[in-house]
């Protein structure tokens, strides 16, 4: 720590002040059998011994006595039984765990895949839900299940692990404890049968537990933990406000495509980015005009995008004329410093013809570094373009055009030269090529055959005597193919831009509609109308109602109960759920939260009349986001209206106040004065009547003053703050209550040094009311005690009596406005104590009423203050 603390990063401060989130601790091991479960149970027992509420969610003891002994004595949550293909599978019961809400839950085997039909496909997703619900989680994990290490593990052991846990989960962990066991000891344990090995996998497993494998895995686990420790140190340094010298910010970009090799590229990019603490992008380029990807390729691209996202990268699809140009433009725009690309697997000839992506990247990269990564052994399956449905019309038109050309040539007889015939055929081929590549090619072949047969000597044979005619055939073929391809490309580009345009238009139209919306229901109706319009899928918008449940706000299709559950999950977690997401992917609908907690848009994907791809989902999400913005805007407008109303009400109140204060005070002052003047001149019985008039008018005045005081403090009028000795305020209040307290013993215990930071007039009023209250509600001649003491950062002032005590019921009721005690003879307007509370609160303090030991009541008020402010006394005047 430097001598002068750095100014803290506001985000870091916010993090420090954020409410404690649930903690995730991972017991991390290099391979099965190192004792993770054992360590987890031991740690949990220690927690329980310290008084934590610990529950076992899932722990696999594999029948080992030592482990079972550790489970004994812990609370075990019953598993949820799921029937799957005739087998009963026991899974973690997340709902029961959340309902039970322990402080800590043990969930073994983080990488476990759940049985189909359970809420999430993966156990780590269950764990996220538990953490969201505020429950601490202990879990175990082996290194081979870490997403970004799958390739490395594959290389070491030759086993491709399918059950993986995203690295983001490891990063979410608050603590990772490495359970380390040297390979020799592990092998010993294996030999002694202490490691659980399922019978059917014994051979494979034994191959796995080779010393070399174990050492390599152990190193991997140690390194991963070390990286994590390094990250913790970095985080610690940030929290401790130590300025570290950060290297210039690196940014990474990885190009991905439909090839399975992209998966490896993504993982490699993540490892690189991790090492550099750099943000990274995974980019897929849709080349304008290229034929659309096949369904399989599309799914693979989406899988790669999802993988990149799950590894913490930002995945994007961009569009460009060529892959290299689009990637470089994007890289420049985002200040990317390194680009990761795959090593080509195709032959050199293809690059000669089509141009090499890598070559173009390297040439155009400038100061951006290009990393080339070798692909995995399995060759990329040829990305087969989806064959468009055969359009027979094009072929028929093409054949007709060629026939017409042949007929014209034949009818013209000798009046046309051979080149003229060629022109006719080229025209026919061009017309046919408008129907696409197939018809173009077919027309070219047909033309060549017809030309050869009918016009080239020797006629009516397919024999070609002159070699020059072969050139003509080649030209005809080339024109047919080239034109056909060109037209096909144009068609695709047109279709793609049409689709994009339709979606942009849909979003724009929605934005316009939602901007005109007057309430949340209008926005919901717009969401339904536009999503149904653009995607032809029935849609329902649910919004939370008063009791927190969701109810349909727009849309006609009713939702089934299990569909409602998906919607509720999406609403509660603020993340999309259902089809195409990580959560409940088997659902028939996609539920996307609207943002601003306004509700959920549920799109019934399965009832859609068109296939909804990633683009469609993006559109749904974009519309949902826009809807959130619109709803937030409506809410702000509502708040502004309410604020304006409040201001109006406040103005009304203050004008009422000044009217009341003038119109009531003046006559009261006149009555008081006139009656007192009259009284002074009167003797005998009339004088008593005049006394009554004066006293009652004064009482009325006091009620009026209290009414005015409460209105004033409640309206939030600003309070002056001055340091005043408590003794002075007590003295002033006592002076004004001299007559009502006459004949009572008032004991005062106030330290002369003690002062309060208050408005002296209001605070005198507070004490005065407490004293008058005590005088009013206690028998004459009972004692009253005033006490002031330091209390934390403030001062507590107490007024205690020995009267009948507080009325039955909660003590704080006495501070309610117009509350009157049971003894109606002495009751006033019931405002005195309400004023006290108002004044205390206006100073940032509080007041409470207590039943006093030995009878009576104590009123204790806390006010800011303490000792006299320090500082040099100013010089005396000369």
């Amino acid at each position, binding site marked *: 720590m430097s001598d002068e603390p750095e100014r803290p990063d506001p985000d870091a401060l916010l993090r420090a002040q954020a409410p404690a989130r649930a903690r995730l601790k991972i017991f991390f091991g290099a391979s099965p059998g190192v004792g993770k479960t054992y360590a987890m149970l031991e740690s949990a027992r220690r927690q329980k011994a310290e008084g934590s509420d610990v529950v076992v969610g899932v722990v696999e003891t594999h029948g080992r006595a030592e482990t079972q002994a550790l489970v004994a004595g812990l609370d075990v949550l019953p598993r949820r039984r799921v029937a799957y293909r005739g087998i009963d599978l026991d899974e973690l019961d997340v709902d029961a765990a959340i309902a039970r809400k322990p402080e800590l839950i043990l969930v073994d085997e983080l990488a476990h895949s759940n049985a189909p039909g359970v809420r999430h496909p993966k156990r780590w997703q269950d764990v996220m839900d538990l953490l969201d619900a505020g429950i601490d989680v202990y879990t175990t994990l082996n290194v081979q299940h870490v997403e970004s290490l799958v390739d490395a593990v594959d290389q070491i052991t030759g086993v491709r692990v399918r059950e993986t846990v995203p690295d983001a989960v490891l990063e979410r962990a608050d603590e990772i404890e490495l359970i380390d066991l040297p390979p020799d000891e592990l092998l010993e344990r294996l030999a002694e049968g202490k490691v659980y090995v399922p019978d059917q996998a014994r051979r494979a497993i034994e191959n796995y537990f080779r010393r070399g494998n174990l050492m390599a895995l152990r190193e991997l686990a140690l390194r991963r933990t070390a990286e994590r420790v390094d990250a913790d140190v970095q985080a610690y340094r940030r929290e401790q406000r130590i300025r570290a010298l950060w290297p210039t910010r690196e940014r990474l970009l990885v190009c991905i495509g439909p090839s399975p090799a992209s998966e490896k590229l993504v993982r490699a990019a993540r490892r690189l980015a991790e090492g550099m603490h750099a943000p990274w992008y995974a980019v897929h380029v849709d080349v304008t005009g290229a034929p659309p990807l096949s369904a399989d390729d599309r799914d693979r691209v989406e899988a790669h995008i999802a993988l990149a996202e799950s590894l913490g990268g930002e995945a994007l699809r961009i569009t460009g004329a060529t892959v290299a140009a689009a990637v470089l433009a994007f890289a420049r725009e985002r200040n990317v410093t390194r680009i990761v690309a795959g090593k080509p697997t195709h032959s050199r000839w293809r690059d000669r013809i089509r141009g090499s992506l890598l070559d173009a990247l390297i040439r155009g990269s400038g100061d951006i570094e290009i990393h080339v990564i070798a692909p995995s052994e399995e060759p990329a399956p040829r990305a087969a373009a989806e064959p468009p449905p055969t359009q027979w019309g094009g072929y028929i038109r093409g054949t007709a055009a060629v026939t017409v050309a042949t007929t014209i040539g034949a009818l013209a007889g000798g009046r046309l030269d051979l080149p003229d015939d060629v022109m006719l055929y080229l025209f026919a081929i061009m017309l046919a090529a408008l129907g696409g590549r197939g018809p173009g090619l077919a027309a070219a072949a047909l033309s060549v055959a017809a030309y050869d047969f009918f016009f080239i000597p020797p006629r009516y044979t397919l024999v070609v005597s002159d070699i020059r005619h072969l050139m003509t055939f080649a030209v005809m073929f080339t024109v047919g193919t080239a034109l056909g391809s060109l037209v096909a490309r144009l068609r695709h580009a047109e279709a793609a831009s049409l689709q994009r345009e339709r979606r942009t238009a849909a979003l724009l139209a929605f934005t316009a509609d939602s901007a005109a919306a007057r309430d949340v229901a209008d926005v919901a109706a717009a969401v339904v109308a536009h999503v149904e319009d653009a995607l032809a899928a029935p849609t329902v918008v649910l919004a939370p109602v008063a009791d927190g449940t969701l109810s349909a706000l727009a849309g006609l299709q009713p939702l089934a109960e299990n569909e409602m559950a998906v919607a509720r999950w999406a609403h509660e977690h603020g993340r999309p759920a259902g089809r195409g997401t990580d959560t409940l992917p088997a659902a028939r609908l996609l539920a996307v939260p609207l943002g601003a907690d306004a509700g959920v848009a549920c799109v019934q994907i399965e009832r859609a009349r068109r296939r909804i791809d990633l683009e469609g989902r993006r559109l749904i999400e974009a519309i949902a986001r826009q809807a959130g913005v619109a709803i937030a805007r409506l809410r702000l407008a509502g708040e502004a209206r309410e604020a304006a109303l409040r201001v109006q009400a406040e103005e009304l109140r203050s004008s009422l106040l000044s009217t009341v204060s*003038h119109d009531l005070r003046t006559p009261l002052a006149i009555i008081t004065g006139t009656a007192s003047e009259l009284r002074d001149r009167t003797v005998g019985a009339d004088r008593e009547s005049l006394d009554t008039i004066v006293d009652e008018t004064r009482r009325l005045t006091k009620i009026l003053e209290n009414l005015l005081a409460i209105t004033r403090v409640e309206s939030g009028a600003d309070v002056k703050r001055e340091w005043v000795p408590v003794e002075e305020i007590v003295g002033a209040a006592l002076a004004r209550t001299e007559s009502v307290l006459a004949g009572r013993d008032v004991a*005062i215990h106030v330290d002369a040094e003690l002062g309060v930071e208050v408005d002296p007039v209001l605070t005198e009023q507070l004490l005065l009311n407490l004293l008058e209250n005590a005088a009013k509600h206690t028998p004459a001649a009972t004692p009253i005690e005033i006490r002031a003491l330091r209390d934390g950062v403030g001062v507590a002032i107490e007024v205690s009596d020995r009267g009948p005590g507080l009325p039955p019921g909660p003590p704080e009721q006495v501070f309610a406005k117009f509350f009157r005690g049971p003894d109606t003879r002495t009751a006033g307007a019931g405002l005195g104590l309400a004023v006290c509370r108002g004044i205390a609160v206006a100073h940032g303090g509080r007041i409470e009423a207590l039943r006093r030991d030995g009878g009576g009541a104590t009123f204790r008020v806390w006010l800011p203050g303490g000792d006299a402010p320090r500082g040099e006394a100013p010089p005396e005047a000369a």
Partner: protein
Amino acid sequence: MTEPADTVLVVEDEAPMRRFVRSALATHGFRVVEAGTLAEAEGLATESPPELVLLDLGLPDGDGLDLLTRLREWSQAPVIVLSARGREEDKVKALDAGADDYLTKPFGTSELLARIRVALRHARAQKAPDDPIIAIGPIRIDQARHEVGVDGAQVHLTPIEFKLLVLLARHAGKVLTHRQLLHEVWGPRSTHQTHYLRVHMAALRRKVEADPARPKWLITEAGVGYRLRDS
């Protein structure tokens, strides 16, 4: 009632209020002149300069403070301000602008008369030479020898406490604002440091009062200032 026919100018817009004040004062031998507006009051004040002015601060044609300021340009006649509770700032402003005292509405005849007498006595005392010895209740101040006795026993005051006490005693019965006291004792630059004043007043009370939490002489006027009771 040794001073026959002192003239009191009552500036108050409420006629019934004026009537009550007039009736009370007339009974006790004062001559009363009434004004319902600022303009009227100014005319009357110049026409027949009053011995004392009772001034309501809220008037239909302007602020009573303006009249006070203009009056102070040529007259030293005591001015007592009439005001409602909760308007302490107004009272302080009026006192700082040269008013001699204030009365919080509603008030009775006895309070009114007591304040008028104090104010008139002070006005006269100012013309008389200053007596080096001031005695108020049990308190006896010898200004020449810087000595203070309470109930015959000598008490030791710091210079600041002595100055404060003398200041209050010279204006006994009259309220002095925080600002006025700070200005006199600490000088013109310290008029906002009210906590110094409060600390020294507390110390003074402990030396002069029998029970400082229930002061009999050094009275606090919350939000306004202090007053030394006039026997």
